[in-house]
C-alpha cells in the first residue's frame, strides 16, 4: 500500500507544479475566466441541474404521453426515446475519452486525465443502460433478449472496452504512469472500434438498420421526431451535468491522494 501511494506523490506534485506557474504568470482573460467560474460556477451548475431535471420530466411526458403509439411495435417502442439518446451519448463519451487522452499525452495536464476518466465512467453507465433497454425492446419485438446483430455486438464490445478501461485504471492507480497507460489504451481502442464494426457487420447482418429507425428519417411522424429531439437534448444536459460532478470527484480524489502521500512522507 505504501509503495502504491508514495509513487504518485512525486508525480502528481510535479504535474501540478508544472501546470500552476503557467496559470499564474498569465493574467488576463484566463484568470478573469477562472474568477468568474469561481464566483458564478455554483449558480450555473445549479441552473444546469434544474434545467436537466425539467428536461427529464418533459422527456418522460413526451415519451409516454405525447408521442403516438407505434402501430407495429406497440407501446414498447417508447423505450426508443431513452435508448437512442443514451446510445449516441455513449459513443460520444467514447470519442471524448480518446480526444482527452490525446490531449493528456500532449499537455501532460492532469485535468485532461480526469476528464477522460469521468467520460469513461459515464460512458460505461450509459452503455449498460443502452444494453438493458435494448434487451427489453428485443425481448418484446424479436422474441429474444439478445441477437448477435452487428450493432448490438459492437455496443457490447464497447461496453467491455469501457469496463476494462475502468478496471485497469484501478490497478494502475493515480500515477503519471497509470494516466499515460490509460491514455494509450483509450486511443488504441478508439481506432479499433470502426474495424470492429465492419467485422461484425460482415459476420452478422441479420437485422438491417431499418429495424431501428434513426431520427430524422422521413418514415417517422413529426411528433416522434419532436419527442426524440427533446429527449436527446435532455439526456445531453444530463450527460453534461454528470460529467461535471464526476470530474469534480476525480479532482477531489486526486487531491486527497496527494495530501495523504504528503502526510505519509512527513
Amino acid at each position, binding site marked *: 500500500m505504501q509503495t502504491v501511494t508514495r509513487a504518485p506523490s512525486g508525480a502528481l506534485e510535479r504535474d501540478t507544479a508544472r501546470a500552476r506557474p503557467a496559470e499564474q504568470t498569465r493574467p488576463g482573460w484566463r484568470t478573469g475566466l477562472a474568477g468568474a467560474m469561481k464566483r458564478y460556477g455554483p449558480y450555473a451548475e445549479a441552473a444546469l441541474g434544474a434545467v436537466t431535471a425539467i428536461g427529464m420530466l418533459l422527456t418522460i411526458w413526451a415519451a409516454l404521453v405525447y408521442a403516438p403509439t407505434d402501430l407495429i411495435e406497440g407501446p414498447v417502442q417508447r423505450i426508443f426515446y431513452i435508448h437512442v439518446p443514451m446510445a449516441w451519448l455513449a459513443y460520444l463519451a467514447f470519442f471524448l475519452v480518446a480526444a482527452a487522452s490525446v490531449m493528456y499525452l500532449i499537455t501532460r495536464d492532469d485535468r485532461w486525465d480526469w476528464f477522460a476518466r469521468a467520460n469513461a465512467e459515464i460512458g460505461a453507465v450509459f452503455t449498460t443502460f443502452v444494453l438493458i433497454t435494448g434487451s427489453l425492446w428485443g425481448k418484446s419485438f424479436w422474441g429474444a433478449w439478445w441477437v448477435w446483430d452487428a450493432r448490438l455486438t459492437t455496443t457490447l464490445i464497447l461496453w467491455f472496452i469501457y469496463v476494462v478501461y475502468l*478496471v*485497469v485504471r484501478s*490497478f494502475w492507480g493515480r500515477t503519471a*504512469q497509470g494516466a499515460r*497507460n490509460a491514455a494509450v489504451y483509450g486511443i*488504441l481502442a478508439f*481506432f479499433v472500434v470502426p474495424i470492429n464494426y465492419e*467485422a*461484425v457487420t*460482415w459476420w452478422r447482418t441479420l437485422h438491417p438498420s431499418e429495424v431501428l429507425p434513426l431520427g430524422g428519417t422521413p418514415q417517422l411522424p413529426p411528433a416522434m421526431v419532436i419527442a426524440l429531439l427533446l429527449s436527446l437534448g435532455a439526456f445531453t444536459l444530463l450527460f453534461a451535468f454528470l460529467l461535471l460532478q464526476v470530474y469534480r470527484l476525480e479532482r477531489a480524489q486526486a487531491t486527497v491522494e496527494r495530501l495523504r502521500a504528503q502526510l505519509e512522507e512527513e
Partner: protein
Amino acid sequence: MRLAWGQLWAIVGKDLRLELRTRQVWMSMGVFALLALLIFSFAFDLRVENKAAVGPGALWVAFIFASMLGLGRNIAAEQERGPMDRLLLCPVDRTVIYLAKVIGNVIFIGVVEAVALPVFAALYDLPIITGLIVLITLLGTIGIAAVGVIFSALAANTRAREFLLPLLVFPIIIPVVLGSVRATEALVNPIHGDPPWLGLIIAFDIICLSVSAILFQFVVEE
C-alpha cells in the same frame, strides 16, 4: 534508415538468441497450444458434419491463448532480468524497439504455430495445409503481436500483469479473431461471396502497428 534496420535486427537477434538459450517460452507455448487442441477435441463433438465448423475456431483459440502465454512470459522475463531498462538506455528510437519486439514475437508465435498446424490438420483431419493458411496465420499473428506487445508493456509495470494482459488484449483483437477464423473456415469450406476477411486483417494490422508505434514511446517513458 540503414542504421535503424541494423538496430532492428540487432534487437530481434538478441531476443532470439536469449530464447534459443533456454527455449522455455517456446516449449511452454508449444505444449500449451497442443494441449488446447486436445481439450477442444474432447469439448466439441467432432463428427464429420460439424468439424469443419468447429475446427478453425479451436485452432485460433489455441493460437491466441498460446500467444498470450508467450507475451506474458516475455514481459515477465524482461522484468526479472531487466534488459528492457538497458535497451531503453541505448540510443535507439522507441519505434524501432517496438517494431523489433513485434517481429520477435511474430517469430516466437510463428514457430509454435508451425508446429501446431500440422498436428491440428492431422487431429481434426481437415485439408487446411495450403499456401494460403501461411498467409492467414502470418497476418493474424502480426495483429495479435502488434496489440500484444504494446499492451504487455502497459501491463508490465503493474501488479497482476499476467492477468491484466488478456483483459486488455481480448476486446481489441476481436477483428483479428473474426477475420482469421472466417478466412480459415473458407479454406475448408469455400463460401461464394464471402467478405474479404484478409483485407480486414491487413487493415487492422496496419492501423494497430502504426498507432502503437507512435504510442509506444509514452508507455516506456520514465
